[in-house]
């Protein structure tokens, strides 16, 4: 026990046991201090002064507090999250959507839902959880690329992902409230700008938050390493698990064009590098690569197909030799295709991960197969 005999007023104000006596005054405290004061009568005024100070400091209650109703809302919200998670997201997010804090709230809701997705995906062993995964599937669409070529996936807001062979992508059917995708493998993303609803890519425990437009994410199941490469715009990368655990605050990293980050979870380390050669889709290179002067349609299509690693099908005989002047470097993939199609009076669609271009004047002819 501390020897209090030489304590002055301020020393008592640094002492937990003394302050607790004044604030909480349990039996044990009272017994100790009355006995101590009996043995140290000369310290009575010092103790009384310190007591006076401790008990005189009070705090004015806040004007803003949580009402009982709001507490019940929180309880209800949390219970929903624990039981029927997927459906109830909509209800809550709608509520915040209407408020002026929508921006912040939307971001937080996205983060909240992730926590659960991981929980559910990782614990599919119990039958009850299986059911929840199924309800989840109705809200999410999945694409698994088992073919040998990349697949284009268009999401509801028009953002595109080029999914590499052997990779899988799961994304929310409607991006009206949040733009959340889960990636296993490698994909190139071209994301439409929408500051109100951040675009988030989850891969294992890593999250890429899109602040700009295009980038590649690469992660492999067996291998824990994780890589993000940025072509244009700006992205924020962080480890969701570490961020939630709060072990390291400096756990996020911002990437700008021609930078890549590699993350090794075992070492808890981000390795950020600037690429020695700028990417073909970065602004400075793309401008040269995607400015066409009297160039045949077939060459332009070939270029797009190669750079984005996508399959483009079109009628070579009919369209291939039409020459074009075009500068399409600043357009995302879908805009690029749209522009060149407009120029040759053709239309296009995304189908089964491919881009199908059809000449306009053939539209009335029924396809021969299927």
């Amino acid at each position, binding site marked *: 026990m501390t020897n209090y005999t030489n304590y002055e*007023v*301020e020393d008592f*104000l*640094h002492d*937990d046991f003394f*302050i*607790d006596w*004044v*604030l*909480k*005054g*349990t039996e044990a405290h009272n017994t100790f201090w009355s006995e101590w004061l009996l043995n140290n009568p000369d310290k009575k*005024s010092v103790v*009384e*002064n310190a007591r*006076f*100070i*401790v*008990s*005189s*400091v*009070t*705090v*004015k209650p*806040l004007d*803003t*507090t*949580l009402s009982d109703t*709001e*507490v019940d809302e*929180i*309880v209800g*919200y*949390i*219970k929903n*999250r*624990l039981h029927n998670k997927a459906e109830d997201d909509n209800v809550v997010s709608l509520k*915040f959507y209407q*408020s002026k*804090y929508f921006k*912040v*709230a939307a*971001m*937080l*809701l996205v*983060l*909240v839902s992730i*926590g659960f997705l991981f*929980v559910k995906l990782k614990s599919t062993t119990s039958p009850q959880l299986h059911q929840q995964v199924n309800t989840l599937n109705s809200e999410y669409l999945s694409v698994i690329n088992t073919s040998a070529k990349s697949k284009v996936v268009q999401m509801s807001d028009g953002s595109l992902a080029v999914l590499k062979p052997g990779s899988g992508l799961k994304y929310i059917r409607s991006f009206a409230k949040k733009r959340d995708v889960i990636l296993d493998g490698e994909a190139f993303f071209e994301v439409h700008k929408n500051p109100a609803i951040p675009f988030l890519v989850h891969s294992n425990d890593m999250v890429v*938050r899109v*602040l700009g437009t295009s980038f590649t994410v690469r992660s492999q199941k067996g291998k824990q390493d994780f890589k993000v490469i940025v072509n244009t715009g700006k992205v*924020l990368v*962080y480890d969701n698990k570490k*961020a*939630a655990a*709060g072990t390291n*605050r400096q756990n*996020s990293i*911002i990437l700008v064009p021609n930078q890549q980050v590699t993350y090794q979870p075992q070492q808890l380390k981000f390795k950020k590098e600037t690429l020695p050669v700028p990417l073909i889709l970065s602004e400075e290179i793309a401008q040269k690569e995607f400015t066409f002067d009297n160039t045949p349609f077939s060459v332009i299509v070939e270029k797009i197909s190669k750079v984005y690693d996508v399959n483009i099908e079109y009628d070579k005989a009919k369209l291939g030799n039409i020459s074009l002047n075009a500068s399409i470097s600043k357009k995302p993939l879908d805009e690029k295709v749209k522009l060149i199609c407009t120029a040759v009076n053709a239309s296009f669609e995304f189908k089964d991960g491919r881009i199908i271009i059809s000449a306009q004047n053939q539209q009335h002819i029924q396809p021969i197969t299927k």
Partner: protein
Amino acid sequence: MGLEHNFLTAPDDSELWDLFRAGDEVAYTQLIKKYSKVVFNYGFRICQDKDFLKDCVQDVFLELWNRKERISPTPAVKWYLFKAVRLRIFREQSKWNMGEPLDENYEFLVEFNIETKMITDLENLELSNKIRQVLNTLPPRQREIMYLRFYEGLDFDSIAQIMEISKQSVHNLLQKAYKNFRSEWLVVLLMFWR
């Protein structure tokens, strides 16, 4: 004041905590009901955005549930929740502000009063107003320590962990705070006891 806020050692807390850790949802709900207001109150002093903070409080409780197997058997509920909410506020804010950490120049909103029943005459009232002024102009960290120790009744070890500084730093900051109104306090005390 002290007793009212002393949730830490309330008799049923350790029981609630044990039940909660064993996965009892009723106990978990009781913990939420019991602590969400006090956690909100603390958080609001750091960040005055109600909806943002409500989300933080929700997340903190969800995280508590998800981590229940790994959580300490000691029922230091308030300490744990305060630490979690403070961390989350700073982290979410810095994420929103593109990674710029905010916690070095945060505000800590608190208005201190001097217990009025102790003020016996006008002269004392004037002095206590002075002390209150000094208290209310302290830098945020010092104010936060005063708040957590004298209002929330948390001990210095808990405060150090909540604020992520050493216990020595807590005492150093407290000493600086006391220094500011040492002279005023002494006058009040002299008058009070004369």
